[in-house]
């Protein structure tokens, strides 16, 4: 059980939630949260946006009944949270690009704090949010509204590229990584996948991801995968 410290609306349907807990977490990991009794049945996975000594922050987009209930939370309310879970982004050396699409920017803020000197690319379909918080953490910050943020990144300039965003963006990033590799670049691309989950700990196999070496679990083996491991079916 954790207490809500704040739950700020950033823009239409996007909220910044801060919950009291000392459970911490690593970049790219997530928590399972619920703020209700029996319905909805499942808790919701939210990726870690920021870790403080006595709290963890999340950025979420209201997409269904669970996140709608989250959006009504106010300071002092309690939420059940379990975590941190999952295998996040690796701590890497060298030149790093962080690329986020929409609410996919959520896990990248904590990454940026761990990886000083990274370049950050944030893409939004309609309205930008939280970009000023990223600015002091970036060697260079590129923000794109309404375009295609991947078009602004030259993968070959980086040792590591971390990507989080909607499914088509991840697939496009995978192709871009392959193209960079074929051109002789040694860039390692990591994708953070989103998937429906029931348990969040690797027991239910609801969030299964097709990978080159078989089925993997988005919750436990991921949500972060090496780009070349993942097989996109559509």
């Amino acid at each position: 059980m954790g207490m809500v410290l704040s739950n700020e609306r950033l823009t239409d349907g996007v909220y910044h939630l801060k919950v009291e807990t000392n459970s911490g977490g690593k970049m790219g990991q997530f928590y399972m949260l619920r703020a209700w009794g029996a319905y909805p049945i499942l808790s919701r996975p939210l990726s870690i946006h920021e870790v403080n000594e006595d709290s963890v922050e999340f950025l979420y987009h209201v997409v269904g009944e669970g996140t709608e209930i989250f959006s009504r939370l106010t300071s002092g309310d309690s939420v059940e949270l379990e975590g941190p879970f999952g295998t996040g982004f690796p701590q890497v050396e060298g030149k790093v690009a962080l690329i986020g699409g929409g609410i996919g920017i959520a896990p990248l803020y904590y990454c940026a704090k761990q990886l000083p000197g990274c370049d950050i690319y944030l893409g939004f379909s309609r309205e930008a949010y939280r970009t000023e918080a990223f600015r002091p953490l970036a060697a260079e910050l590129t923000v794109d509204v309404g375009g295609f943020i991947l078009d602004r990144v030259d993968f070959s300039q980086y040792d590591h590229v971390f990507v989080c965003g909607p499914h088509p963006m991840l697939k496009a990033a995978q192709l871009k990584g392959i193209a960079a590799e074929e051109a002789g670049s040694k860039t390692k691309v990591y994708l953070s996948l989103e998937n429906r989950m029931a348990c969040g700990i690797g027991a239910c196999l609801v969030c299964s991801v097709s990978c080159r070496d078989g089925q993997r679990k988005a919750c436990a083996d991921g949500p972060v995968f090496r780009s070349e491991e993942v097989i996109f079916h559509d």
Partner: protein
Amino acid sequence: MTKMSTTIAGVHFKNPIIMASGTFGFGREYGKLYDVSLLGGISGKGLTLHPKAGNPGTRVYETASGMLNSVGLENPGVAAFLEKECPYWETLDTARLVNLGGGTLEDYVLGAEMIQRDADLRSSLGKTAVDMIELNISCPNVKEGGIAFGIKTSEAQKVVQAVRRATKLPLAVKLSPGAENIVEMAQMCEEEGADAVSLINTISGMKIDVRRRSSVFNNLYAGLSGPAIKPVALRMVHQVAQNISIPVIGMGGITSATDIIEFIMAGASVIQVGTYNFMNLRAGSQLVEELEQFMVQENIQSLDEIRGII
């Protein structure tokens, strides 16, 4: 001290709370959250002879008080289970049920034979990893086999008969609520030498995405579980328990100690907890504690006092 323990076919259950197949992996993940040896038992992820990748597309969808799933029996296969999971199961002090599914009669038999051989080998070394086979003839989420065996008593009989011959291990048969006649199905299991029946598996259901004008599931239908199915499960457990003499393992939407008591009063010997594991990752340890407290409050000395009293 209240008596929560029960024995089925020589297998001791320290309390009536078993974690249901498909919701508990092989116990390792929950083992990081609490001591799974507190539980009466665990039923492992449904196994098939060969590894299975499961169903593509959406695998879970929430409904009013329930959950539809279409995981499609993704599992590592019997051999990988015996090699990789059984060493962990050997360390657990709880009843361990291996849930065996299949696509063909031959798959069921070969799977059961492999489990038996492994049990014999471990036994010769003074070890045990599997206490009971829970035969799954009722998975609604696989195209071949699965539910087809679970509907017609005559079809189910072939599987139960063949698996009974293939293993000496205690055998529970998990029944589908879609069975043509659930009581006849359970009676057949008893006649064929099953040691218990588990019921109910999920109820076949559907969810349509009206904007995309299609089912949300690639297989159209999916298995409904959770509190929504509890009244149906309870009724079926009651009907079956009155008509057979082997024990009933009851399940369907259990989320509290009072739910457990209801199933015991309906005639279940032990119960399984499934979807609630997703609603509360510590469901197992909390229910054990809650049940003990409830029995003290209600002055129930032993579950035997109330079993089947309705």
